[in-house]
């Protein structure tokens, strides 16, 4: 047991090191891109199409001769912005509904859960297409669509934990103390559900980016030439076998972001996990 503890310390030191080195590399690349290169991310240069790496194009250019590195960096704001927006909104809907459903049970629960089921029955493409149709195409509506599709996951997950927890005596005490339901949910039940939710959400980050990419496939994602990673991934599909690195760049960027959100999720989860036990 003690061996594991030592191990952990070493690992986290090692982790810290990599983390710092990674951040430095990213910063340097950021500075290089925007202070030195200063490419226009949307400038099409067909003569310079699919160029390999060089000093002026460290990651080469894409199929329209645009600088990959600049596009990748420009893409962060869209990709991270949109996915976190969608996820955040989904959490904002899903967690309260899950709490309410699991806590009140009975008819409230049944109504909410049937509504949730209804959302599950609709293919997400339908939701996205309808919203795009009603509100016009664009990534904003896609975010809305993803929110509408994703909240159910969180609602159900939260509900299942709450169902088990809400019968315990400490919840009864809180009830007897006259705490309104709202407070019992936020103060007593929320800390129990947040762990699972964070784990799910940090992984969902990747799934949401990929969902945006999938929607780009049917014309509902980011509008070209926006360098959104999901859309880029999709655009670069034809080069899978001829120039695999082109797809790997946005792919790797997504992995990095998911990695980061996972670390964050783990960190938060550990903060809520007061016992910190489990290893044998």
């Amino acid at each position, binding site marked *: 047991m003690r061996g594991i503890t030592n191990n952990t310390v070493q690992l986290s030191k090692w982790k810290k090191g990599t983390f710092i080195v990674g951040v430095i590399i990213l910063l340097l690349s950021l500075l290089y891109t925007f202070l030195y290169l200063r490419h226009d991310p949307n400038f099409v240069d*067909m003569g310079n199409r699919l160029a390999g790496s060089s000093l002026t194009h460290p990651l080469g250019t894409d199929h329209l001769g645009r600088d990959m590195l600049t596009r990748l960096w420009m893409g962060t704001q869209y990709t991270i912005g949109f996915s976190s927006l969608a996820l955040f909104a989904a959490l904002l809907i899903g967690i309260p509904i899950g709490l309410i459903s699991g806590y009140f049970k009975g008819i409230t629960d049944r109504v909410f859960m049937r509504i949730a089921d209804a959302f599950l029955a609709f293919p997400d493409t339908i939701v996205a297409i309808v919203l795009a149709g009603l509100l016009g*195409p664009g990534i904003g509506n896609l975010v809305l669509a993803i929110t509408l599709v994703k909240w159910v996951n969180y609602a159900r997950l939260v509900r299942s934990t709450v169902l088990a927890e809400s019968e315990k005596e400490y919840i009864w005490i809180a009830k007897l103390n006259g705490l309104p339901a709202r407070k019992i949910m936020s103060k007593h039940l929320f800390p129990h559900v947040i762990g699972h939710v964070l784990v799910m959400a940090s992984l969902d980050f990747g799934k949401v980016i990929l969902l945006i990419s999938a929607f780009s496939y049917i014309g509902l994602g980011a509008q070209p030439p926006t360098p959104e990673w999901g859309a880029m991934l999709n655009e670069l599909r*034809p080069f899978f*076998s001829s120039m695999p690195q082109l797809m790997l760049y946005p792919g790797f960027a997504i992995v990095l972001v998911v990695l980061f959100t996972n670390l964050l999720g783990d960190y938060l989860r550990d903060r809520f996990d007061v016992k910190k036990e489990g290893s044998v």
Partner: protein
Amino acid sequence: SSDDANEAGGENEDKHLHFLYNFATNSLDPNVDSSYVPIRAGVTETLVRLDEENLTISPWLAESWEGDDGKNWTLHLREDVTFHNGNPMDAEAVKASLERTIEESSAMKNALKIESIEADGYTLHITTTEPFPEFVSELVNPNVSIIDVTEEDIINHPVGTGPFEVASFSPGSKLEVTRYDDYWDGASPLDGVTFSFNEDANARTMALLSDQVDIVYRPEVESLGELEAKGNITVESTATFRVHQMTMNMERESLKDVNVRRAVDALIDKQEIVDSILLGHAEPAKGPFLPSLPFAPSYGDKPSGPDAAKEYLEEAGYTMEDGVMQKDGEQLSFTLLTYPARADLPLIAQVFQSDAEQLGIDVEIRQIDIPEEYMASNRDWDIATYSNLTAPRGDAGYYLNATYHPTGALNFSGAEVPELTAIIDELNQTVDQEKRNELAEQAADYVDENAINSFVLHPSTIVAYNDEKVKNWVTTKSEYYMITNELDVK
């Protein structure tokens, strides 16, 4: 099924080909399904066909026909044709088949405009509801495939007259066909063909690389190098009747000016797009029709490039100030529609956007889902990339009517030009082929002069096959005929 063929092949090696197509279908109903798999797989045939060399209409199941008034048609059928089940293909059978087509498909009912059919031995008398000169060319449509309608399961097992009969069908995945020995035009040397579907271009390429299939329709363009590097693979490409165009919304203020439209046309670097987006597998377009078509006009050289575009714009009253192309203090800006179903189009849109930016024109790209729907119901866009079949059955009538006639379903530019409408109306009344070609050419010239749309390129069909095995493969322009009785193995 391939096992059956194996056994039937006896002592000889099994003569079998595996063809991979880029579109999947769940139904083989030849009269309804618009993926046309039965005709492509050599299961069914139509009364007339497109002559791929001369791009004219030629006899097939019908030997000859007449209909000088454009309304009363007589067709003489071949007398030596039998269906796969042995039933003779006589006029009664064809009548029944045509009637089924009209009944099952509203589209074909519209397209054929048949009022009545009479069968008489091997002769058919057909009357159309109105004078309809293109009638025979409409019979080329694969949905007019002649099948034996007495068969039960047409969706999964249509019985036609082609060189191959259906052995088994897994919806969405593949179709197995075997040779029909009594085929009227000489039985195929092959025992059978597997006709499978895969809609992912990369996956199709890999299927060929892994030797699972012999012929691949439309492999991934970007991976052709890899295929060629394998040594035994031939890549063929043939221009099609399709044109990628920039549809211009003539209801918009700026585009009402013909000079602005010309500027847009001049701004598009067609050769460059062909070379770098389609890697040369296309032909730069000058007009809507493939130059080899008899009614394609021969165009003179027009000025093009950014400088020419700038000149046109200056003529239209625009000036370049501080890098911004403007008129009355307002920047020239376009909303450009594109859709991802055809992957080249968004790329063309982006190239155009970037080129226009150099001229100080602001282009906002809007990616949509279903272009026909969007363009018809919203008019808040200026330019749209669109792809059209211009003469799918060797006749210009379809495209001109749909795209430039005020009542046409694809008239997204909102063209309502009396001169052009008159030409098309006249075309619709004309039976004589020479005269028709002349009128079509006239219409095309008009379109060109007034820059109603800008035509970018005719994309090619690319087919890659294993040349150590496949013999006599022909890549057709119409994309209707794929598995034929000529196809063989080495």
